[in-house]
């Protein structure tokens, strides 16, 4: 993946090469962005805050999937099932053992990582299409497990969860839960960005780029493939747990294959192998239905609306938009939004001499 540094801009020390935010501008943009999100409850309504929270939660899960798909080159069509497992695990741990919710979330992440390792064991030997099919099977098996394990998931009735609480501070509204999600996002994104600078992170990328060469350089393929499954499941578990304590209710049907595909869509649209791209992709996927809804609302009552039954079939329109977005991005922008963003930045930086 091209990093698009302009000509003449060389790194002269390892320190400069390793830094996550290379320029003062990017550091400033980071602080500004964080400040804006932190101030959002002052300006936005509950619905918009809910969207922000959703973007955050999906962003964490998408980042996990991106570590698996974008960095290690493995594919998983069962991410939503792991997300769901995290949600139920956190809810169950709180109810059965009375562990505080703040602790339940990381615990759920660890539990999901273990489940991910179980399903990742076949992944150590599989790749490409066979792996895709194996994870598809994992999706159906876990979904079936959710429907069956009444003690764990509450069965058809679903499970009611408690809000997040820490030292007497209860985050049961959008305004307060936003900060919980924000803290986790910072933690998880810094974690991922740092992971990629370590030996393990570079090993994952080597496995993606050419696994035979990687193996010859002494990278244990089975270990790293399984590890990346575990990490992806950990992220999914954390995101699922946050989701459970945000909605305060987890239902069995929510974690279906369409949800899994949406995660894959986020990763593709955001950009395979880009940390910030995962967040962009998540934002795109969360906002896309809103745009479709807004479009349908704008046409409501008109002749087009009556002829095409837009209002009644809005959920199908959303699904179609998801499918169409995935296909269009693959054909016209295969490197995703992150790449487009880099191009825009390079354009401004190099204007008017683009070479």
């Amino acid at each position, binding site marked *: 993946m091209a990093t698009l540094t302009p000509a003449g801009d060389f790194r002269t020390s390892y320190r400069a090469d390793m830094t996550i935010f290379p320029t003062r501008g990017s550091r400033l943009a980071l602080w500004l962005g964080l400040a804006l999100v932190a101030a959002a409850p002052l300006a936005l309504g509950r619905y918009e805050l809910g969207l922000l929270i959703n973007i955050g939660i999906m962003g964490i899960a998408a980042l996990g999937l991106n570590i698996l798909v974008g960095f290690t080159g493995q594919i998983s069509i069962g991410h939503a099932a792991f997300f769901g497992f995290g949600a139920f695990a956190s809810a169950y741990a709180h109810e059965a053992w009375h562990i505080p919710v703040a602790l339940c979330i990381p615990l759920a992440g660890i539990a999901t990582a273990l489940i991910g390792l179980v399903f990742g064991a076949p992944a150590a030997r599989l790749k490409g299409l066979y792996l895709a099919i194996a994870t598809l099977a994992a999706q159906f098996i876990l979904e*079936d497990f959710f429907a069956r394990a009444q003690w764990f998931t509450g069965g058809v009735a679903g499970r009611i969860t408690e809000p997040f609480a820490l030292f007497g501070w209860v985050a049961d509204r959008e305004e307060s839960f936003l900060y919980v999600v924000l803290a986790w996002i910072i933690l998880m994104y810094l974690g991922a960005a740092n992971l990629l600078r370590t030996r393990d992170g570079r090993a994952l990328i080597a496995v993606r780029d050419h696994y035979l060469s990687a193996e010859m350089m002494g990278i244990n393929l089975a270990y790293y493939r399984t590890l990346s499954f575990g990490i992806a499941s950990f992220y999914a578990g954390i995101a699922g747990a946050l989701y459970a304590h945000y909605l305060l209710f987890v239902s069995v049907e929510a974690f279906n294959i369409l949800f899994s595909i949406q995660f894959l869509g986020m990763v593709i649209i955001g950009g395979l192998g880009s940390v910030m791209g995962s967040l962009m992709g998540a934002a795109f996927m969360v906002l896309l239905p809103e745009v479709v809804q807004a479009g349908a609302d704008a046409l409501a009552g008109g002749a087009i609306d009556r002829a095409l039954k837009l209002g009644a079939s809005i959920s199908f329109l959303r*699904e179609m938009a998801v499918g169409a977005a995935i296909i269009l991005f693959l054909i016209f922008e295969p490197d995703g939004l992150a790449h487009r963003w880099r191009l825009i930045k390079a354009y401004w930086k190099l204007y008017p001499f683009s070479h």
Partner: protein
Amino acid sequence: MDSALLLQLTLNGLIVGALYGVVAMSFVLIYKASQVVNFAQGEFLLVGAWVCWWLLTDWQLPFWLGFLVTLAFMTAFGMILQVVVLRPLIGEPVISVIMATIGLGIFFQALMKWIFGVFAKPFPPIFHAEQVSVLGLQVQSVYLLSLGISLLIMLGFAWFFTLSKHGLAMRATAFDQQVAQSLGISVPRVFAMSWAISAMVSALAGVVVGVVNGVSSALSFYGIKVFPAVILGGLDSVVGAVLGGLIVGLLENWAQYLDANWLNWGNMYGVAPFYALILILLIKPYGLFGTKNIERV
């Protein structure tokens, strides 16, 4: 023990399994010719069945005419999909191609729900005799028809790949694209043709299932059941796909029998093939009959 029930379930398994085999065959056809894993195979069934249903009910066409029009439409449909969506993705990584077919799958499934609604709709009756008796078992005549059609399709495939010029060209392309090209075979045309045939055959299966069970989005689940079948049979073997389909059909029904009599877990019918799939992949990562890739550097 209820041996009559077991026999009935076995028969059901064979009939459904033959249909799985047909769908798996058309899946393998695409994979062999163009190395694309088609996650939208089930949507081919769905689109085909809905189009046929629409021609029969809204246009009041006789069954044979509507059926032929459907097949012609689906042939064009498969070809257009290949040219518009899959051709620009040649040379992209496997993940991109898989995602593109998944995207197609969601898109057409939602489109069909939008146009035709979410409820199952029955086909107009085609046969006078609803049930016939075979070996003392009551069998719906449509089931017999479906078994017959499945066998016909399989024979057709066998003829196509061993004797016809286009079939041989397709096998040559699957074997080695460059060599095929140097022999004067147009590889893009072979790709488009494989999609066209695959879509047509799947639509045939879709119409048969639609006649038996009514048309609904559940049809696209056949596309997912294809995966256990092809993993069992090996991805690049047409005969294996048929065998895999039959095995999955039997497995489902026997799992249901086992479940109903002793286990009482519920829903084994849908999930048992996936357990089998994981087990097989654990033991033999290239499927039961698939060619093992030997990789040299």
